[in-house]
């Protein structure tokens, strides 16, 4: 069929009339259209001297024959289905489609769709239908390719408007899809690559912070992945270079023992761009309410915590009941301070100190001390801080924070603090980049529609509602959109849908979709998405290429996660990326006389400082211990020999 030939005709009856937002048309039986196909109607009569063009997307399809009842067909073939194939004539059959209007030209006066011929939309039609022509103009091109629309031989690139994806007009993106099909993560990886390639230079720099909350999916963004020929064609069409991210930095806390990093990406071959994430007392106490629930922290405890923040942390503190002056900089210092206060109160046999009751002091001590245990590996007793490079974020750089293996408390703390810091820096315009994307998976868990009003949920709501003014954009993903807080998903200007769970599709939020569209959503293949965007009046189905980065499963097979190793091996693994000349023997020689805690502290300090002379710096971290010299053995006094004639001798 020629591309210029009509493929259908608009029809309308009194029972099924056309409206300004919906119309019906029939096609030949073998017409290459289906749910999601975009069509163009050319009206027969001019309106105000202009032939109307109506663009629509097929949302429902019907097929029926002239049969009045199925029984007639049974009778036709004497109840034998095998005979049906021998009938000389097929029954008259219709393919009737319902299309939702995407755009009418002219747009005013808005009238019901007129009768006319229906054509398959070509690439130019798709641009007009989706109003992409408004942001794909020369000199004002803000399009970010999201995928390719394919139907009946038409391959059209679908662009999102950067102003509506990353602000300031609208912002945020939400992805929904069942787990296990790699739709959500793959879509984000692809979209980040597309954004980094196509985000207009004049709009400034952009970076992304991705929280890896489960599995190894985001752990190999800097490693090349396998893509097929069909994907290469898509990359070419979408004008994106099929290569892994050029600048990726990983952050992960240590395991509880503190020897290795608590991440899937702790294989020795991949340690060069991974930084330990460790925080001290100051960083944690700032977000104490993330870890201390309301039942724990009543007004009295809150008052004591405030007192500690105001007067104790990082200040020289003395008090008559204390035995010494305290300078609290770490959890260890804080615990010493608490011990001194409580001992002083015991000595005075008093119930309270500075209006704080002893029971409250004991409770706060217990809760705060517990944090370093609950968040072991992240929170250090020593106070050593290793953090994201706030203030020097790089353009087109992905910062992955791996929290997949952490306890929920530690995940919450990391999320709350990092997002708060990002927000602070963006407010001050000193983050290092102008726009920042924050990707969070499992919004079901972090911003649920029901349940407790947690600190993390409040932060996500804040980003969703006010982030776009700062350049802070939330890319959220979840399996069940219906279970995410309405204000989080509602504020997402753009929404992507992968294959959906039928139960989820039966929730009220999807009632606006036609049954056929819902069916298509439930059966989408890998690499297919339904896209909702402010410029599109109806959702559009697109295909996107497989991300050109190594997938989690392949990465974890090629770079297996390291298990816990000896302290010397852990030091070697940590320092060798900084100085390849370091050997295990050298580490063993240097650390032989010191405790495990001292060795870990020295390693962490070296990794944090990243000095030029790694060996010297690492060695300097240890207290001087004069190696014990073997004591000279005293000369044994000569035993006099007994006289030969000694009568007592033997």
């Amino acid at each position, binding site marked *: 069929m020629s591309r210029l030939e009509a493929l259908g005709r608009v029809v309308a009856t009194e029972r099924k009339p056309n409206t300004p937002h919906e119309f019906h048309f029939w096609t030949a039986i073998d017409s290459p259209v289906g749910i999601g196909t975009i069509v163009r109607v050319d009206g027969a009569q001019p309106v105000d001297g202009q032939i109307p063009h109506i663009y629509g997307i097929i949302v429902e399809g019907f097929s029926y024959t002239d049969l009045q009842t199925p029984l007639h*067909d049974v009778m036709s*073939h004497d109840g034998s289905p095998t005979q049906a194939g021998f009938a000389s*004539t097929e029954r*008259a059959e219709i393919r009737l489609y319902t299309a939702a209007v995407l755009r009418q030209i002219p747009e005013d006066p808005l009238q019901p769709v007129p009768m006319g011929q229906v054509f398959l939309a070509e690439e130019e039609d798709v641009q007009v239908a989706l109003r992409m022509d408004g942001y794909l103009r020369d000199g004002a091109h803000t399009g970010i390719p999201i995928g390719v629309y394919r139907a009946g031989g038409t391959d059209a690139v679908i662009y999102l408007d950067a102003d509506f994806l990353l602000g300031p007009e609208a912002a945020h993106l939400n992805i929904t899809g069942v787990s296990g099909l790699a739709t959500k993560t793959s879509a984000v990886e692809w979209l980040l690559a597309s954004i980094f390639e196509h985000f207009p230079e004049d709009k400034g720099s952009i970076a992304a912070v991705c929280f890896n909350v489960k599995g190894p999916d985001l752990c190999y963004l800097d490693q090349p992945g396998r893509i097929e020929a069909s994907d290469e064609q898509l990359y070419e069409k979408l004008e994106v270079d099929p290569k892994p991210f050029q600048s990726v930095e990983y952050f992960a806390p240590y395991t509880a023992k503190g020897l290795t990093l608590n991440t899937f990406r702790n294989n020795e071959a991949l340690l060069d761009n991974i930084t330990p994430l460790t925080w001290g007392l100051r960083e944690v106490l700032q977000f104490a309410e993330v870890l201390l629930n309301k039942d724990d922290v009543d007004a009295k405890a809150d008052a004591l915590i405030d007192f500690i923040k105001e007067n104790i942390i990082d200040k020289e503190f003395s008090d008559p009941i204390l035995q010494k002056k305290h300078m609290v900089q770490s959890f260890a210092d804080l615990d010493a301070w608490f011990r001194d206060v409580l001992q002083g109160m015991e000595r005075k046999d008093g119930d309270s100190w500075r209006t704080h009751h002893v029971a409250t002091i004991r409770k706060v001590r217990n809760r705060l001390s517990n944090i370093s245990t609950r968040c072991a590996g992240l929170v250090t007793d020593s106070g050593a801080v290793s953090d994201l490079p706030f203030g020097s974020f790089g353009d087109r750089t992905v910062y992955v924070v791996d929290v997949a293996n952490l306890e929920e408390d530690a995940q919450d703390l990391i999320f709350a603090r990092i997002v708060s810091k990002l927000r602070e820096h963006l407010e001050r315009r000193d983050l290092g980049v102008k726009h920042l994307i924050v990707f969070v998976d499992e919004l079901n868990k972090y911003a649920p529609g029901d349940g407790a009003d947690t600190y993390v949920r409040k932060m996500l709501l804040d980003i969703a509602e006010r982030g776009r003014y700062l350049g802070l954009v939330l890319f959220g993903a979840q399996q069940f959109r219906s279970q995410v807080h309405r204000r989080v998903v509602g504020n997402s200007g753009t929404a992507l849908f992968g294959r959906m769970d039928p139960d989820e599709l039966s929730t009220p939020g999807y009632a606006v979709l036609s049954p056929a569209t819902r069916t298509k959503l439930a059966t989408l293949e890998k690499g297919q998405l339904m896209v909702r965007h402010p410029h599109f009046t109806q959702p559009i189905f697109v295909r996107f290429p497989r991300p050109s980065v190594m997938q989690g499963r392949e990465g974890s097979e090629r770079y297996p996660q390291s298990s816990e190793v000896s302290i010397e091996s852990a030091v070697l693994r940590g320092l060798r990326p900084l100085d390849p000349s370091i050997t295990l023997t050298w580490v063993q020689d240097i650390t032989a006389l010191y405790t495990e805690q001292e060795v870990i502290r020295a390693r962490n300090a070296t990794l944090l400082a990243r000095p030029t002379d790694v060996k010297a710096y690492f060695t300097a971290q240890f207290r001087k211990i004069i190696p014990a010299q073997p004591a000279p053995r005293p000369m044994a006094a000569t035993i006099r020999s007994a006289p030969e004639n000694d009568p007592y001798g033997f």
Partner: protein
Amino acid sequence: MRATSSGRDVASQAALRMLMARLPGVTAVDGAPSIEPPASGDPPTVQTAELVEGSSMQVIKVPDPEADAQSGFAAFLDGAQQVQVMGDHAGIPIVYGTVSAAVRLRVNRRMVTWEGLPPRVKRSFFLPRRYLPPLSEVPSLVGESQLEVVDSAKANKNGSFPIMHPTALLDSAFRAVNEMREQLEHEFAEAWCASEKAPLFIDGGISGIPNASSSCAVGVVKSHRTLFAEGDALRTVFRLSKGERSSVFRVSPRSRSTVYSWYLRVRDVSHHDSMWGLVRVEIARCDRPTERADEISRWVIAEMSPLSLPDGRWDKMAYGIRDCEEFLRAIS
């Protein structure tokens, strides 16, 4: 053939306005009621036919009617007519008739319209001119189609005219519409036979077709007002079971072509009347009528699937003919 009626549509309303302009005194009739085919059309008759296969009417089993269910028919021809009483002029009914015909071609088991002669729809007023004043000459307005008027009160073969009785005039108008529809069907049949070689399934007899000698025209008659058998021969016909045919006989109507014909039972007659599933097939005369009758009988039986339900004549109607009727209903 299909006969239907409906209310006035835009085209018929425009035609009525034109007629009223040229024939003062015409008043419109509410709802434009239809007229049913006259009950006393041709009276039921029986005739003795001249056998061309054997010496007496026999029951002949169609060889392997189910074994080769493929039909040799390439296309189907049918016509339709719509008769409405649109107005009244001093008791004289003003009849508006619409006739149409088309050939539907079978391509890959699906029906499409034959392009050799595009479907035609003719609309006319059928007026008993002898009982009405002459039509005044009114120039047609730009864009208006010509008003077609047919005199429905012509003398019959005996030279007598229909009496000025509304029912008689309606009957004569109906016959005129019928003739127009038959004429149209014959034009299509002739056009097909002149340009195509493949057999054409025609709804109705073919003896009226001038070129009926063509081997490509096969008529299948569903109504049996005239039975071409008497006595034992008729009882033999009524005894036909599904997949059986009668002996071939010759039909030679007056002023029409002579054709070969036979009866064929296409459905199981159990628990039904004798006419159930009984059709009469007409073909042009040929040298080997037995082989031809067997072959075409198999084709006709094959055409009975799928069923033509919900049409009331589904026991005798081929699906291709139903498709023609639905097509004509859509365009007329």
